[in-house]
């Protein structure tokens, strides 16, 4: 009996409504938080920050955002890349127009701007459903990228059309620009991720989350029992846009430092984030983390094994990587179509019963 539930009684609905109703889970959650804030910053180095931790944190925010839209509200979106670009460019314009305001607020505001744009592109979802909507969101993807590439106002008329994050500080410590320390950027992103996750969790466990899920599971029935589909869908687009915008802003300002929109925020990015939530688990906040971690680590591991360990020529490794990534995705979907989160749930269910099944 690894996993105990019996004996963990709840006496009020407040207790039962908690994020982690089971004590064991709750403790684990505090431990993870403590390590993330209290231990990792002291161990971190440049390589781990850049190769794994920063992208993991930032993609997790994006994945949470997309998961709200797709996993909870059932609206498949392939426009994530474009929306992240909105966050990035909004952040850039704000950073350069109001250099005296703290970057923290720029990032939040970038999320706000993205929420608005995302909502606007969500309008067709009132009529268009399923894959038609998915493909329609590509319109946002391509149009936004084109726009940022075309209109020089967005990149402050720089000759190359790229945007570069100027140096900005939080409590006197640089978090953007070329002279940042790994621990500072890490903590900066971690704060955003923690807040995002808490907000997302609160929204999805309450009535708002239920409305979204109702729309996802059966939109007509949802409307007939009283969900206003327009408000439900658009609010999902807005909230999702908010998170995706934040992640786009962080991706540009903290992680990359400079961005060429077509490549960084192209359609590949949309697919990547979608993959994260599917492999992690649709409709699960934990799944967003798991999926992001998995897909950020995968190439690092593959490269370690292929090039550094087996010593294969890089081109064969590069091609094999495609084969392996492709195969892994398929194997994964076959083994557990509902993602790592579901795998985790089933494991827990088994552990609960262990060692006496049935």
């Amino acid at each position: 009996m690894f996993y105990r539930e019996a004996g963990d009684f709840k006496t009020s609905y407040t207790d039962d409504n908690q994020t982690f109703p089971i004590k064991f889970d709750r403790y684990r959650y505090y431990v993870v938080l403590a390590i993330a804030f209290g231990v990792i910053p002291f161990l971190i180095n440049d390589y781990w920050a850049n190769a794994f931790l920063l992208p993991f944190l930032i993609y997790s925010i994006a994945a949470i955002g997309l998961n709200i839209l797709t996993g909870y509200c059932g609206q498949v979106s392939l426009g994530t890349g474009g929306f992240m670009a909105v966050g990035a460019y909004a952040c850039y314009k704000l950073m350069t127009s109001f250099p005296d305001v703290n970057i923290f607020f720029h990032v939040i505001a970038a999320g706000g701007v993205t929420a608005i744009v995302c909502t606007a592109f969500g309008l067709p979802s009132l009529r268009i459903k399923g894959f038609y909507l998915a493909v329609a969101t590509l319109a946002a993807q391509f149009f936004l990228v084109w726009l940022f590439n075309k209109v020089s106002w967005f990149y402050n008329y720089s000759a190359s059309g790229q945007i570069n994050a100027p140096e900005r500080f939080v409590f006197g410590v640089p978090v953007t620009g070329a002279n940042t320390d790994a621990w500072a950027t890490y903590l900066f992103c971690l704060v955003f991720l923690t807040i995002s996750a808490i907000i997302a969790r609160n929204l999805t466990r309450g009535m708002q989350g239920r409305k979204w899920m109702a729309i996802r599971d059966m939109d007509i029935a949802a409307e007939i029992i009283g969900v206003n589909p327009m408000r439900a869908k658009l609010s999902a687009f807005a909230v999702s846009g908010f998170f995706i915008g934040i992640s786009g802003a962080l991706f540009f300002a903290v992680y990359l430092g400079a961005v060429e929109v077509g490549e960084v925020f192209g359609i590949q990015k949309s697919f990547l984030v979608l993959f994260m939530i599917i492999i992690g688990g649709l409709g699960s906040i934990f799944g967003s983390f798991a999926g992001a971690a998995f897909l950020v680590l995968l190439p690092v591991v593959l490269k370690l094994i292929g090039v550094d360990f087996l010593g294969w020529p890089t081109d064969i490794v590069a091609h094999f990587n495609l084969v392996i990534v492709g195969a892994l995705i398929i194997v994964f979907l076959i083994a557990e179509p509902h993602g790592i989160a579901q795998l985790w749930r089933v494991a827990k269910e088994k552990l609960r019963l262990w060692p006496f099944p049935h």
Partner: protein
Amino acid sequence: MLEQLYFAMEVFLNGLMAGVLYALVALGFVLIFKASGIFNYAQGVMALFSALTLVGIMDGQVPFSHIINATFGTDIHHFGWHVPALFAIFGTVIVMVLFAWIVQRYIFRHLVGQEPIILFMATIGLAYFLEGVGDLMWGSEIKKLDVGLPQGINDTIDQVTYEMFGYGFFIDNLDIVATVVAVLLVIGLVIFAQYSKEGRAMRAVADDHQAALSVGVSLNFIWIMVWSVAGFVALVAGIMWGTKSGVQFSLSLIALKALPVLMLGGFTSIPGAIVGGLIIGVGEKLFEFFMSSSALAGELFGFTISATENWFAYVLALIFLVFRPQGLFGEKIIERV
């Protein structure tokens, strides 16, 4: 002024032709979607893969030669023969049927009954996989594909129109061939899907896997069949596009051009693919033409709008969809409680 009109007409005609080429890719999507509700993102990579295979067979390339050489220290590249195009096409079709079988046996059989988005993701996985295999098998350098299709400006049209209007229209020979092929394909496929027993079974499977199983339709058979046909359509698209730009990775990106076509025509409609293709082709070419050539646009926005082709098709399709959520010819979305 008249001049402008002729230009516009030329652009229009070329748009039609470009649309046909998009439609060729879209057709493969439609088939698979119709038969299984699978939104096959790998269709573009299938076009690439089939074209690579075709060239490989024609040139007598040794598959996986690079790995073989790397592991065994050999130095083999070619069998040293040249296969005539027709036989090579035949060989490629066999490969695509084999591919269909593998896809069915090892992937989709295990995913029966899953949600569409899961299936969609699986096809993206498949796309990666196939791209890697294609690279490993045939190498990623550019290959020239020549199955003897004519290419370049059609002189007859040029001359005839020159005599008629004083302006010779540009139509590419390859586009004319593509149009003929596409029309034949569409007619064939429509007859198949609408009137044959297998076609009916295919539509049944798309509606409800379980029920289809319960009446004795073999999902395996139907899906292998459909993926084979889609593989064939991919080959046709691969030949057309490969002849144009050489066979290489970017061929797989034409999938992105086919998506708006699908949206517009309806995911389930074979004729829709063609009509959608034509509308998109014409729409994007004309839009680009007016925007980049008119001074008006420049005055309006302070900059000229150009390179719109990546998004225009999507936006156009989106606008259509708002009025017809299932595309122009797509199956009605049945909404009942």
